[in-house]
């Protein structure tokens, strides 16, 4: 407890994705991966995770960088730092909401070190889970937050575990219908980001469907939303490093003055990034006026079941939805 010392381990610099996958296969659950290593290091220093082999992905050049694709989309290597995402011309040209979200993550130092892949694959920020409580997510059989301090926890779509997804990058990417590219022992697979995230009902100990011996290598953003109107906002307790109480990303396409297509995704509400489908469908086909926006934002979380200390998130989600619809540009 609180040793602040990583137990002895073998550090392996992976030279390629195949090499990393092979090493993970070889060592099984004794191995863990790091990239920016802004988070895993804390789990290890606290000795809550004690991998014997640490596979360092940082040296894999093929997983780094941002390029525009031939069809007008953008392909982001998972190892690309958040700072590089913020500064990327390709991102800012048609998909600035990603840069807006990435620019509000953590601190300048962490954005220089942390990667976009790490941001979307990050683990729960539940303070019980992270403090070593034997909760559902940690393999136990209770949720301490439900009876304890749950202000920052989910208000909807949870099952036993009420953790809320903390990622800023995920909501922007999901609003743009991004896909993830994953390499594993059986080759390459890809899936929409919306399928990548896993809620507790499906598997309570993970946040996404990345298998142990798989590597998230790229994020691909299709051209679909290029140049659309975007909105990003993150509500936090303080200006310095803070995870969202609730954040929101919106992409809106209009045709003839009316909304032709819209995607609104929010974190801090559910164990996975939450699409606010009610609001999306309510505003589609409508002009964005104050009254239409207010009406569309009326019931964004129809199945919400908040705790007493996070009920405020319901109104906050509605307010942010309205702001997103009215403020997108």
């Amino acid at each position, binding site marked *: *407890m*609180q*040793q*602040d*010392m990583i*137990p*002895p381990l073998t550090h392996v610099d992976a030279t390629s994705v195949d090499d990393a996958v092979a090493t993970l296969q070889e060592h099984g659950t004794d191995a863990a991966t790091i990239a920016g290593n802004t988070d895993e290091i804390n789990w290890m220093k*606290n*000795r809550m995770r004690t991998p014997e082999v640490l596979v360092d992905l940082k040296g894999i050049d093929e997983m780094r960088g941002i390029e525009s694709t031939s069809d007008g989309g953008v392909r982001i290597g998972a190892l690309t730092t958040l700072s590089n995402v913020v500064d990327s011309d390709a991102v800012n040209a048609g998909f600035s909401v990603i840069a807006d979200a990435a620019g509000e993550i953590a*601190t300048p130092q962490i954005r220089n070190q942390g990667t976009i892949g790490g941001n979307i694959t990050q683990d729960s920020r539940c*303070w*019980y889970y992270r*403090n070593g*409580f034997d909760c559902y997510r940690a393999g136990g059989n209770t949720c*301490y937050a439900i*009876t*304890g*301090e749950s*202000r920052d926890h989910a208000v909807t779509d949870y099952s036993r575990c009420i953790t809320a997804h903390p990622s800023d990058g995920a909501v922007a990417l999901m609003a743009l219908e991004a896909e993830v590219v994953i390499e594993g022992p059986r080759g390459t697979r890809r899936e929409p980001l919306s399928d990548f995230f896993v809620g507790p009902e499906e598997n309570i100990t993970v946040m996404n469907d990345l298998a142990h011996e798989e590597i998230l290598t790229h994020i691909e953003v299709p051209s679909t939303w290029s140049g659309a109107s975007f909105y990003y*906002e993150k*509500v*936090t*307790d*303080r*200006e*310095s*490093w*803070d*995870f969202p*109480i609730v954040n929101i990303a919106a992409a809106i396409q209009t045709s003839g003055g009316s909304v032709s297509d819209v995607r609104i995704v929010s974190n801090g509400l559910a164990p996975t990034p939450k699409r606010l489908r009610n609001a999306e469908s309510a505003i589609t086909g409508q002009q964005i006026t104050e009254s239409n926006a207010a009406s569309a934002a009326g019931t964004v979380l129809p199945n919400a079941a908040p705790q007493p*200390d*996070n*009920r*405020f998130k319901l*109104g*906050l989600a509605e*307010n*942010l939805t*309205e*702001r997103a619809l009215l403020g997108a540009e």
Partner: protein
Amino acid sequence: MSNHDFQYVGQDFEVPDGRAKVTGEAKYADDYLFDNALQAKTVKSPYAHARVRSIDTSAAEQLSSVKAIITHEDVPDSPIGQPILDGEPKTFGYPVAAVAADDEYAAAAAVEAIDVEWEVLDHVVDPVEALKPGAPNPRSNGNVPTGEAAGESAEGQGGGTAAIDTVKWTDADFSGRYPENPGEYTLKWSWGDVSQGFDRADHIVEDVVTAQPIPTNPMEPRSTGAHWQSNGKVKAWVSSQSMSLTHTGLAGMLGVSPQNLTLINNFTGGGFGSKGTSYPQMGVPAYLSKQINRPVKIRGTRKEEFHWGNGRSTLVSKIRIGVDDDGRITALDIESIADSGAYSNSAMSTLSSAYNCILQCYQPETARLRGIGVFTNTPKRWPMRGPGQNQAGLVISQVADMAAEAAGVDPLDLKITNAAQQETDEFDPETAPKTGNERAPLTSAHLGTAYEQAAEAVNYDELRQRSGTREGSKVYGVGTASASHQSGYIGFDGLVAVHTDGTVEVRQGAGNLGTESFAAVARMVAETLDVPWEQVEVSWGRSDKSSFTLGQFSSNTTFTEGLANVKAAETAAQYLRELAAEELGGTAEAYDVSGGMVSHGESGESLTLAEAAQVAVDTGGKYTAEEIPDFYQENLVPLTIAAAQGVMGNSLVAFGKTTGEDLGGFVTSFAGAIAEVSVDVETGKVRVEEMANWNDSGTIVHPDSYHAQIEGGAIQGIGYALSEHYLHDEDTGIPLNTDLYKNKPPSIQDYSETPLQTGGVGEPDPFGPHGAKGVGEPPYGAAAGAVASAVRDAIGVTFHEFPISPSKVLEKIDSGEADI
């Protein structure tokens, strides 16, 4: 302002430790490397309250890398404070055993090889809960410290009496914000007839406000290197904000005479009160080193700061104010519950300091103040920057605004009307504003002026006009608040040496916390001796070169240590005149000390300081401390005389000692702050749009440091009001937000976005060295209170709990309580 008479006081200068800090040359406790050193780690309790049944160290002893193991049975017990290791750990994370091994990896492995059998005990983390009948006691021998509060000068840094009892409020109704029909209080102050005061009042308001606990969060976690040598002498490299008190405190903790302990502490990365004296992280490596006589280091970790460090006390206050139609406070009645955590009696000091602050800032005509401190199974509540005073600044500002509203006067006018403001230029103990149950006169008080100058800086009338107006989703509000702190003490020592090369050395004894007030002490000596600044050296960082003084806390170094050393400088000047008269003829009184010379006023004959110091060496006796005058022999602390050892006989040596004759009242510094906030009623986000934080600190000695203190204090205070807190899970007693990113103190991005104006009244204090008082603490409480007051002004609802996070704002709006 009377600073214009000074040559050095009031001018900026390069601080003596600045270059080392910015180049990285500065060594903090963990930076020291030792030959043959071992590394220590501790075995900690995983429970909020437990008892050690047994500790099996046999497996760890088998490890070849392990060189020493100690348990709670090997170290002295502590009746109420933190024992070095505790057999009944009363908080999560408190250590019960420690190891020293070849390196930190081995030490961590050894800790995991030690097996502890625990008896888990009941815990309580909420201070109000601790008073409920049937609630468990946080300590096996009670729930309430009942000893006398330590004086404000000690601020719980020691002093006080260790007494523990069980007090339950058996007849109280705990269903409201504050228990109705409360039971016994352990601190009771009153004067005047408060019921008559309420009878005279035209309006009476009442509310309950709770100031939340927070950890101190110094940037440097507490690390220590210790070498207990085989000859019984101990050397320790520590992180402290006090040389003298830490030195004597650690000597006591180790059971060695102070003469056998040398403390090295050149640089400290902050303490905010939590490193005022010795602490267990110093004792662990020392006792391990005692076993093997090799240097042992313990590296303090950030996590440990949250569990094994200290925090600000919770203060739950039920405040009732009576005012007349002019806004004059005719009666003030406050009941409070304060939290000591598990390992101190400082809740008593929290209460007395909080009440002093409120009395100083609001000068009520009658008052009744009652309070009780309780223990909880949470980390030690120990002084944190305005401990009690800044909670007070936060809890009372909104209730004072309610009183202003009831009386129909502007809140700022009410606060100025009641503020401590002396009526005469000279100190007059009869008419001076008063404080405390003893009604001590304040040596100087200009809070009203501070408020007025702050109001001018931010154009208060304009902010008042904008108050309540809405721009999009943002509503504006303006708030006002003050805080104060006792900031000057007597009974301490100074030591000034004039070397034969003409250098003036100030062997002052404050720590080097980072506030630079130790350098201001030397600056004041330069002023007194009128010696070129380039010729002045200030020594710091070693106990064997430090005169005895109070710690670098309680906003007091500038006054306390300044006065003792200015007195030493006055003695040095007198010696120089006597020596010049002896050497050049005439009377001592005919000579002036100025410009680094000792010159005859008429003939112009002179000695340089170097020449005069050589005459001192040639003359000996009292001039070189080879003979110490009776007054100093009787009154100086032996450590001060020991600190002169290196210069006795080879330099002019002058001592200073402050006594009761040097002080005629209660030295108090004030801050008055005005803040404008915007509240986004859709997101709950509060932004401080502007703040002016103006202080009454006497003469300003070093403007750069002065303004830095106000800026830092104000930003920290804003964080206290808006984002920072310490959260324990009630069921398990385990603290949850033990990382900086979860605990949320304000950081650089919060700081840079706040337009902040700082300033000072600058009126000299009649007893302060060159008229100086202190500055460190009041800006914090004034800022916190002003922000709370401004948020209330914006959305028309009183916040009973802090921080005012977006969630708390939205809850007030959702419930319909807010007026938007």
